[in-house]
């Protein structure tokens, strides 16, 4: 439940996920309104009619919920809010919408109810329970009122948790111990700073601070004012009273602000912004990141001061802080990231969408609570890739690193030579491209493969890791159904250091390994082509012209001598040459076979079958 926007998330297959609302948006404006004929609007529709119906469009109820009417904050907000509020009998706040007076939590409930319905619509099941987040500085009465809002919306509120705590949960910081965390939350309308201390099983809020009336919207306003002034400088025309012109400038300002998070400058181009007696006036200007930063520097400076102050209140030193989290859309601004980094001397966490991180964290909390009831099943992942050695000493992966177990994978392999009677299955673990750079886990031989040309026998290799992390590798000749297997225990029993080293090595040697692998693959390709061309010539002894035979044999010879070198370019070149000739001869054979239709069936099949496969193999 944000001051300007709200979001919802669920845990699915162990991961939190944002649920889109009916309109397909990941956040929903926290606004409710009563139309002229009594119809109720919530979310984006309420926002769209806000200017035409300001007195009955209720937003920012989060600023009023659970407060006393006489509170200083409420009195301050009262002057800014376009709708009517009054003191309730119990001293709280009441809001007028349409002809009726509502408690702030009743308005909040309307937003929650929309979220509930939209989620039910998306998921196709009833939503009965919820976890709602509130700012860390909310007192008991504000928390109670928020909980009431949920209950009015028909939800059982399992827990009301702090927004910074939710953010920490989304980043998985609850698993850390004895850490001090600062959550820097720059939203659309409020700036909140919180200092958390993560203990054994608890996340404690040590201090909160911020400015409840500072947010990204202030940034937008600064940009709009700047643009209005620029236009005035260019044309001497003040468009600040022209609603349509201001609206277009506002669109441009928002767009420019977003773009400048990833680029250094952007073009603002608004043709026909306005017109006077002398004709239409167009506005175009280059807006730079530097200019934007200059416009809002004081806001950011203020936020950094507030951050220091809040940390001071805890008695911690800035150097005591272990982690910093960025929350709220405005933290996408590079200058903010930079200033925060400068203050703490460390990179803040910003990987999770800052508009969604709080909702995701609430879902994580929900997941933890469900887990307590339903006994979480902890599934392991394979720390390193597992595979076998194939032709040319290449490491062929069967199960990729970080695959959740139990898992099984099957792949078909074949022989590398004619009449090969057995295959060796060399089981390896690691991330390197070449087999000998990885760790051998075991090997075994599957024999009794009946004589056959290379590539014909089908050997099915399967890897299976059970829930206990035990790896079973099995090889089966599909022709004879003969099989062999091996059982490898503790395949993940590597020390953390070993794992780290192996992963680091893979990164370090990535380019070198890729080259080696490419060479191996090029060689395999060349060998296969030489072999199959030879076979084609032999099988079609009578049909291949003598000239062609000589040409092909020469080229096969050239490929084989190139293979003796380790020069991939030379091997590739000769392979290509051979491939061209083989394709031509193969094509002619094929044509001939078609012309002389009534050949004996068996030999026709053989001669047309083989060359057809050739180009496929050669590619």
């Amino acid at each position, binding site marked *: 439940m944000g001051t300007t926007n709200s979001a919802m998330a669920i845990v*699915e*297959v162990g991961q939190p996920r944002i649920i889109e609302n009916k309109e397909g948006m990941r956040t929903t404006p926290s606004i409710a309104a009563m139309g002229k004929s009594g119809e109720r609007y919530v979310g984006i*529709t309420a926002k*769209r009619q806000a200017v*035409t119906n300001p007195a009955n469009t209720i937003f920012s109820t989060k600023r009023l919920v659970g407060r006393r009417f006489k509170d200083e904050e409420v009195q301050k907000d009262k002057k800014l809010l376009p709708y009517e509020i009054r003191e309730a009998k119990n001293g709280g706040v009441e809001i007028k919408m349409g002809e009726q007076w509502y408690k702030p939590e009743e308005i909040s409930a309307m937003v929650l109810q929309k979220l509930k319905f939209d989620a039910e619509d998306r998921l196709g099941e009833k939503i009965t329970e919820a976890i709602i987040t509130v700012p860390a500085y909310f007192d008991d009465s504000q928390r109670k009122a928020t909980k009431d809002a949920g209950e009015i919306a028909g939800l059982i509120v399992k827990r009301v948790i702090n927004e910074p705590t939710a953010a920490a949960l989304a980043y998985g910081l609850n698993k850390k111990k004895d850490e001090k965390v600062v959550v820097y939350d720059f939203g659309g309308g409020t700036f909140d700073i919180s200092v958390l201390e993560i203990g054994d099983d608890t996340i404690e809020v040590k201090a909160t601070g911020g400015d409840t009336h500072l947010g990204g919207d202030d940034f937008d306003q600064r940009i709009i004012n700047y643009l209005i002034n620029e236009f005035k400088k260019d044309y001497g025309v003040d468009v600040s009273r022209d609603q*349509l012109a201001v609206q277009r400038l506002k669109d441009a300002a928002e767009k420019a602000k977003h773009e400048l998070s990833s680029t250094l400058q952007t073009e603002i*181009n608004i043709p*026909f912004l306005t017109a006077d007696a002398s004709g239409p006036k167009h506005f175009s200007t280059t807006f730079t990141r530097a200019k934007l930063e200059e416009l809002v520097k004081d806001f950011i400076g203020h936020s950094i001061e507030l951050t220091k102050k809040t940390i001071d209140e805890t008695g911690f030193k800035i150097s005591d802080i272990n982690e910093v989290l960025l929350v709220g859309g405005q933290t996408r601004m590079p200058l903010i990231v930079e200033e925060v980094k400068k203050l703490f001397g460390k990179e803040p966490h910003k990987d999770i969408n800052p508009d969604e991180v709080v909702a995701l964290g609430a879902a994580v909390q929900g997941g933890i609570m469900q887990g307590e009831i339903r006994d979480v099943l902890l599934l392991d992942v394979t720390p390193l890739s597992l595979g076998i050695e194939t032709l040319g000493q290449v490491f062929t992966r069967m199960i990729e690193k970080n695959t959740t177990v139990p898992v099984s994978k099957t792949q078909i392999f074949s022989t590398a030579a004619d009449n090969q009677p057995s295959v060796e299955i060399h089981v390896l673990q690691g991330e390197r491209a070449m087999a000998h750079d990885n760790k051998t886990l075991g090997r075994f031989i599957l024999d009794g493969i009946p004589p056959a040309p290379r590539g014909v026998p089908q050997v099915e290799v399967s890897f299976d890791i059970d829930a206990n992390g035990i790896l079973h590798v099995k090889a089966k000749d599909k022709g004879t159904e003969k099989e062999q297997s091996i059982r490898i225990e503790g395949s993940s029993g590597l020390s953390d250091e070993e794992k780290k080293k192996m992963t680091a090595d893979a990164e370090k040697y990535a380019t070198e390994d890729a080259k080696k692998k490419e060479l191996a693959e090029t060689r395999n390709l060349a060998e296969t082509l030489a072999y199959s061309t030879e076979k084609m010539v032999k099988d079609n002894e009578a049909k291949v012209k003598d000239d062609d035979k000589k040409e092909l044999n020469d080229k096969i010879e050239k490929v084989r001598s190139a293979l003796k070198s380790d020069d991939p370019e030379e091997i590739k070149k000769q392979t290509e040459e051979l491939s061209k000739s083989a394709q031509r001869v193969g094509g002619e054979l094929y044509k001939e076979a078609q012309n002389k239709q009534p050949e004996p069936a068996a030999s026709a099949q053989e001669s047309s079958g083989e060359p057809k496969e050739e180009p496929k193999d050669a590619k």
Partner: protein
Amino acid sequence: MSDKTNENNKNIEIEPLQQAQDQLEKANQQAKEYLDSWKRERADFINYKKEEAKRVGEFIKFANEGIFLEMMEVLDNVEIAKKHIPEKIIEDHEEWLEGLEKALAGFEELLSRYGIEKIPIKDQKFNPVLHEAVNGGEGEDIEEVRAGYTMHGKVIRPARVKILSKN
């Protein structure tokens, strides 16, 4: 110590049976629990796959939404330019204008091929599901300020409208 052993001996007949029964029950209970979690997990996975397929379908259907929205901003400017066509051209170059209209119609046709339709404004009353108000007018009749569009029935950009004051 020995006293206790004696007492235990008395129960020796019943205990192993009882123990075995307890164990069996426990094992049965556990087996049921495991089977149940397994079924649940399978169901979760199958449902997840279905959902994911649906999501990917949605994603593909609306994959071009972002590009179209950006293109529309260019189109908006052309529309605004159209409102500012000098009288002289309107009077003397009717055919030229016709050509421009045809060019723009071609764009709208392209949009409709991707399931994008313009939100109608004529004779419509203000409706925030489709329209976004830009002023504080009292009435319900509207005038378009910036065109809105739906894509496969979903509002991808509401029409921006001016609310006309009553009468």
